């Protein structure tokens, strides 16, 4: 199944190259240099994973993560950063990031994490569907 991914990074050359490589791997990739645009995209589209830079001019990556999770707690966000510190990593995990990877990243590892994100998202979707069915069945009093 094709993984739907959103890349968010202020370095255009990085976005272009990574997006093209991920498309070669069969992923459906959207990319933006703007965290505000990413928030808009996440409202209208569903993604299996969002790959997010930690430091961007328009909005801090952690702040973007917080806003993304606020809008949709089920979103699987992987932070990709050139400035990984234990402190930032802990903060990102507390805010609900799925993982944090350091730049330059190994595309194989990143692909594995995206696949894990997709699997995790599917489990959440299935669980929610199951809960909905249980609620409907229970409500009918059969």
């Amino acid at each position, binding site marked *: 199944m094709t993984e739907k991914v959103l890349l968010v990074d202020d370095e255009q*050359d*990085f976005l272009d190259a990574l997006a093209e490589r991920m498309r070669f791997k069969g992923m459906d990739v959207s990319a933006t240099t703007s965290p505000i645009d990413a928030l808009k995209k996440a409202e209208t589209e569903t993604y299996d994973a969002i790959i997010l830079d930690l430091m961007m001019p328009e909005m801090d990556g952690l702040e973007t993560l917080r806003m993304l999770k606020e809008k949709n707690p089920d979103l699987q966000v992987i932070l990709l950063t*050139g400035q990984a510190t234990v402190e930032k990593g802990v903060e990102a995990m507390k805010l609900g990031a799925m993982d944090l990877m350091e730049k330059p*990243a190994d595309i194989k590892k990143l692909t594995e994490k995206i696949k894990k994100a997709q699997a995790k998202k599917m489990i959440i979707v299935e669980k929610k569907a199951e809960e909905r069915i249980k609620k409907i069945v229970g409500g009918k009093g059969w």
Partner: protein
Amino acid sequence: MSYKTDSISEIGLQFFGKISSSNFHEIKNVLAIINETAGLLEDFSLMAEQGVPVGPERMKDLSSKIMKQVRRADGIVRSINRFSHSVDKPTDQVDIAEFLTFMIGLSERFAAMQGVTLKAQPSDIPLLITTAPFLLENLVWLCLDFAMKVAGAGKTVGLAAEKAENNGVRIRFTNLDGLTESLISTFPKEREKALPDALQAEITTDIGAKEMILRLPGDITVNSNQ
């Protein structure tokens, strides 16, 4: 364990860490672009091996992108190297006009993060003074940091150096649209005042002209035992 630190050393160490980490972060970004672009070249090579045609123009484009990033990394490393060596001598001769260009390079990522552009006005003449290079970098950085915050996102902070009285130099930080009395009162902070004192420098502001002016003497003597 107990130890004493004077405010100049403490501020200096924080400044050194801040500038170093920011520039190393920038290098990591460059490496990430090179990594992905080289990865793309590898992908195309594998495709070519399997008989998928790959145009030479695409290869040239990717190679030039890598070379662009190598030049970018070289510039960052040169800057950080010069910055690291600025602590070698307590005092040295500094051309302020050229120094401002160097400081803009060092501060570029901070400016980008705040959505501010820094622009130095070129000087027709060399503006040489004898000063403490590292302390001057620290003081100019504090002024720049304040100027960027005051100017606000989307603005361009201008930096201009000119000759002043007694062979001294004036650095003007211009286009500070948000300059107010209350903001001026916050800069420099109490412990930061040790820096202009050590450099025998003076910071003044002109709200009407939206400017901050840093006056530096032509020559200072630094007692490194202090």
